[in-house]
């Protein structure tokens, strides 16, 4: 049996990678992928705790998260496509016309 901490450490690493990706990458698609990684890191934590505590709650929440993630990906990709058609660019820095 693998100890709980291992799961948590892996989950933390994944979450950090996702966060770093959101901040560092300059491509909107990559940023969306990074957000997916962060969500799945959280999913892993839920499942790990659910297993460790012998409760189904964690796994149920994971289903909800996956649903939301699917919806988010659909909406997010749609926005990205619209933005791309507008500016011919995927760099988030090019969408700053509403700043001061």
């Amino acid at each position: 049996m693998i100890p709980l901490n291992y799961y948590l450490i892996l989950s933390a690493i994944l979450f950090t990678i996702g966060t770093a990706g959101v901040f560092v990458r300059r491509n909107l698609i990559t940023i969306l992928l990074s957000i997916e990684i962060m969500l799945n890191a959280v999913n892993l934590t839920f499942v790990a705790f659910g297993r460790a505590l012998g409760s189904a709650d964690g796994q149920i929440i994971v289903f909800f998260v996956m649903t939301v993630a699917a919806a988010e990906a659909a909406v997010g990709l749609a926005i990205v496509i619209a933005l791309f058609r507008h500016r011919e660019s995927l760099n988030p820095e090019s969408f700053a016309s509403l700043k001061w």
Partner: protein
Amino acid sequence: MLLLIPLLPLLGFLVNASFGRRVSKAAAGAVACGAMIGSFAVSLLSVVRLVQLEPDARAIVNQVFTWITSGDFRADFTLRLDPLSAVMILVVTGIGSLIHIYSTAYMHEEVDSEYARYFSYLNLFAAFMLVLVLGANFLIMFVGWEGVGLCSYLLIGFWFQKKSASDAGKKAFIVNRIGDWGFVLGVLLVFARFGAIDFQEIARAVAAMSPEAGFGTISAITLLLFIGATGKSAQIPLYVWLPDAMEGPTPVSALIHAATMVTAGVYMIGRNAVLFSHAPQTLIVVAVIGTATALMAGTIGLVQNDIKRVLAYSTVSQLGYMFLAMGVGAYAAGIFHLYTHAFFKALLFLGSGAVIHALGGEQDLRRMGGLKSELPITYWTFLIGSIAIAGVPFLSGFFSKDEILFRTYASGHTILWTIGLLTSLLTAIYMFRLVFLAFHGARAPAPVKAAHPEEEEPAAGSDAATGTDTAHRAGPSHPAHPSHGAHGSGAAHLHDAPPAMALALIVLAVGSVLAGYVGLPGALGGGDWFARFLEPAFGVHPAEDAVAEHGLEVTLMLVSSLVAVGGIGIAAYFFLKNRHAADRLAEQFAGPRRVLENKYYVDEIYDAAIVQPIRITSENGLWKVVDARIIDGAVNGAADTVGAASDLLRRIQTGSVRAYAASLFLGVVLILGYYLWP
């Protein structure tokens, strides 16, 4: 049924105000007159019912609805008819009806919509005045009190295209406002002291007390109420609006500024007679102010040249008499004078209106004269009114004025009595000066501008605006009036009063002769019925020892009759027989004469002492500093601060998605850190 009395004129007002401009003059006039006459009929019926009751239980109460209840405070919309208000409603509706009838002829040169507007105001005024006199508590009275002030403003400024008229309207309104301030404070103090505003409850509460020796709450209450009365009833120091109010149409002067509205102050004191009786200090003030006003206005009236202004000062002077009566505790005598004065002063004003109407707007006495043969009805009725007001025996003015002077003398105020007598002499002189100048002698050649004397002041209105006015002054329906200039004036044939006006004049003349007989004093074989009828309303019984002084009363009557006849004689000598003597006298006393002609410079003093300081502080202090700097500064400053802060804060809005995400992340970390930190 009582409700109908003010309701009928109110309906007349609503009808004329809503549909008046679409119907003919005849219809508008008929609605207005019908409403007033109906109201008069209902009043008569109500008074008949009242008289049939037991003397001590003479009151008809009509509680219409509960108006306000709040905690201990309760104000009902209640109308109450007692002997005092019975006299008042008969005067208001009776004289009011006559003046409405008179107005149908006097105002017929106005265009239809103006005509309807005039009658709607007149009806509204009557409705408010009736509410004032029928109201059973201070609050209802106050509704009427403010309402008549409003209507006064509307009617004085009826020809609002003329600057002097709209100014006079504003002056009346603002001066009245000062009085109303005192009145409101008085009412509030009454409520604070007695916890009630119903006249009956207050009277009962006060009757249980003993009169105040020093200056206490009741004195303060009555003094404040008296300030209200000085405003409404044109007494020193707030009388200045009444002479200016002559800018309004003449029937308005007759109705509002002679017969009814200005008596509201006198009525209010009579209504609170018990309260005032318990404040001897205030009563002295009332008597002194009344006497001073009577004398002052009488002297000013002596030298005025505008026919209506003479009558206006005469009104102020007669109101002074009424206050003198109130001040010496002769409430019935004061109301009696109010009642007789309503007849002859309405008559005099309507007579002067007939003169002005016939002369196409001429108001200057110096340009009149010799009208006796041309305007016989006007002359004879005017003469009767003058005799009545002068106090010649056996006409109405004699009985009421004598009653006041006798009561004053009997109460020991010899100085006030002497001044009152002197004023009575002045009254006879200025009234007969008016009669002789206007109706006797030869017509003075009128200067070129004679047809439009009022327009000496620069006309403020547009051409169309002055057109209405001019049409009234020298309308086409009076072809005899010379529209321009001088030469025709003397020779032109003048029309006497048309039937509607003549009817009102004659009825009022009969009233001026006979009205006094309801109060025939005991000394002359009468029974003082009027005073006896009113007694229960005042809650004070006149001293029984008055009966013993019949001898004194007759003596005083003789004295004042002599004074009245003497005054007429003096006027006849100076203004009928020997006008040069009058001119010489005027030259000899040029100084005092100038002071009188300028009305003791009171308007100028008020302007310098009150109006200008207020104007200057308002303009330079309140406007340019408080409003422009402080208030506007605070508002603009708040906006500027927000603007500057926003200017700084918007720098955060970089537009970089990653910066937003970073701040979001940082925020979450900080919040979680705060809660999860061990």
